[in-house]
């Protein structure tokens, strides 16, 4: 899908993490190139959400390194905040600021983190809301929107920072079936525009149609990392065959 030369944007090497006795990330090596869309799939408890959250350090790691655009991820403080501003995140539970309107949700960090003027931030915010089809809801509060609408606002909020990459942590798992499409359509649009994306999802249709690579995780390890058509047609590992047979036949 990408014709540009491969330049790494997100690099994880030798990443390990435990939750107590559970070794949730085991020697993870993963490189995501600029403009690439990488879909992470796997059974629940496989560590895929933890992996996604580790990339902007919402989860700390015990060993290994994570670099974003060549810069190692700082442990804490302002350096970490600055790097996080470059990597947008979309959550399963939307996490829109409940006390702010839709427009305020997409302008707050632009003003406070990027230092843009209010007018500039609002213009950008409105154009992004336009893009996700919600500009007429700008003055509503998140609770007044449907789940699908909230998630589209959350995507607009992340885009407003003009991030280098976007992380999606099961963005459609909390949505009613008829709302999944509207969110996936927005994500497909981003992928087509060349946004670098790491998407943890159970939407195999999205993986087939929009991903450059599918990363299959099980028990804290990356088991397969291949192009989607190869992976779905001909999974190599027993673990992946078993997983696909369970999810594709119902």
């Amino acid at each position: 899908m990408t014709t540009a030369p491969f330049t790494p944007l997100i690099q994880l090497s030798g990443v390990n993490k435990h939750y107590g006795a559970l070794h949730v990330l085991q020697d993870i090596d993963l490189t995501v190139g600029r403009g690439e869309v990488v879909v992470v799939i796997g059974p629940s408890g496989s560590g895929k959400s933890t992996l996604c959250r580790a990339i902007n350090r919402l989860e700390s790691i015990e060993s290994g390194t994570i670099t974003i655009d060549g810069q190692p991820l700082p442990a804490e403080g302002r350096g970490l905040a600055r790097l996080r501003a470059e990597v947008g995140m979309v959550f399963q539970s939307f996490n829109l600021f409940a006390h702010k309107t839709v427009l305020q949700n997409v302008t707050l960090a632009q003003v406070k983190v990027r230092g843009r003027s209010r007018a500039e931030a609002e213009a950008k915010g409105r154009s992004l809301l336009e893009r996700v089809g919600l500009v007429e809801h700008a003055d509503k509060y998140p609770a007044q929107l449907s789940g699908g609408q909230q998630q589209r606002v959350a995507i607009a909020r992340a885009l407003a920072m003009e991030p280098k990459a976007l992380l999606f942590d099961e963005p459609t798992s909390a949505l009613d079936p008829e709302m999944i499409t509207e969110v996936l359509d927005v994500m497909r649009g981003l992928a087509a525009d060349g946004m670098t994306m790491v998407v943890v999802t159970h939407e195999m249709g999205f993986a087939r149609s929009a991903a450059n690579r599918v990363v299959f995780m099980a028990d804290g390890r990356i088991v397969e990392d291949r192009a989607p058509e190869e992976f779905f047609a001909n999974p190599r590992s027993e673990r992946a065959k078993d997983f696909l047979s369970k999810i594709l036949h119902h």
Partner: protein
Amino acid sequence: MHVLTANWHTYWEGFVGTIELTAVSSALALLLGVLIAGFRVSPVPGLRAFGTVWVTLLRNTPLTLLFFIVVLGLPRFGISLPFFTFAVLALSCYTSAFICEALRSGINTVPLGQGEAARSLGMTFGQTLSLVVLPQAARSVIGPIGSLLIALAKNSAIAGSFSVTELLGSYRTINELGYSIIWTFVWIAVGYLVITLAISAVFNLLERRLAVAR
């Protein structure tokens, strides 16, 4: 009634004294309470420890004892301030420990995802707390904080025993003039009621203003 009219000046001075003491101490207690609550949820272990010690010491010391420590203790270190300032220090530090804990329980009612979303957008700890978490925590702690400030207004009566002009202390002057002790106290109680009802009215208003749709 004539106890009040005959001693209007004494009552008024005490009434104003209590209002000043309450207002200044409330402002400082709120400021300190927010700061210490910030310490207690901060990622820096040293600040968390400081916050815990602050709350544990001040919340578990009787207020009168705290007044003695401030009024008798600080001058030993060469710090001599007006009695009013000493009283404000004792009252506000004491109340700040309770406000901190009320805020902290409010902070715990805000879903974790709100802070994560703020951090993922590149906000610092201070921005996350002040722009996203505290405004939402405030809604659930307005009621308890109102109660704490009402308690502060009544606790300010202790300052009267430490040479600060305030409402309760006005009974001494009036009693020496031979007025009925019962009516003296009835009017003092009315004075406190005016102050505490005003505080609860303000907080009821705040509660209604902050309760927007979510």
